[in-house]
């Protein structure tokens, strides 16, 4: 049973560029959440996708956008990159119908470095 996968593992970009990160959820899961984890801190919620729509959003600017595909996989896009966007980006999947008992399973993350 494949767990949550993310690509790429590492990414280096320069300020002002755009980046796309990808996530495939655990088999049987239909909901994908994205988190940003700065060095030495706990993860911060960016947004969550369900049925190809943004269901909930954290306190992040519009430069952060996402998409969910019919196969439940998801992309996180960040435009006009800033140095402060350097972080580990974590994807987590869950099964919404079991919201009361669900558990979010995390992928290994994508390390983004902005120079």
């Amino acid at each position, binding site marked *: 049973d494949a767990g949550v996968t993310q690509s790429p593992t590492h990414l280096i970009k320069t300020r002002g560029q755009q980046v796309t990160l990808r996530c495939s959820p655990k088999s049987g899961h239909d909901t994908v959440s994205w988190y940003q984890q700065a060095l*030495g801190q706990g*993860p911060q*919620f960016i947004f969550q996708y369900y049925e190809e729509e943004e269901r909930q959003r954290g306190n992040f600017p519009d430069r952060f956008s996402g998409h969910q595909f019919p196969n439940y996989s998801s992309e996180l896009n960040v435009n006009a990159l800033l140095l402060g966007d350097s972080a580990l980006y974590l994807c987590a999947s869950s099964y919404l119908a079991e*919201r009361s008992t669900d558990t979010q399973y995390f992928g290994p993350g994508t390390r983004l470095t902005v120079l």
Partner: protein
Amino acid sequence: AQTVTQSQPEMSVQEAETVTLSCTYDTSESDYYLFWYKQPPSRQMILVIRQEAYKQQNATENRFSVNFQKAAKSFSLKISDSQLGDAAMYFCAVRNNAGNMLTFGGGTRLMVKP
């Protein structure tokens, strides 16, 4: 809004001994869920244990158990018979029942001495 505080940036334990990691939280929700996640150097966040706030009985998972004090909004993690593989960052998190957003604390780095 929900907040989670982990007041111990680092903890150290001798192998085979017991250690307790502290966590306090604040939420206006009456129905919520609490989690402890482990993040080893490999970076992948791994669920250690979960607790439903409406359950008075403390959750246990093998060597891991929690002390859930709802009135005090406290959710500590006890690791018994510590092993070298337990060395990692540990994060406490809270989620309300309406949404699926996890709010994390700042983490506690656990070191296990052989």
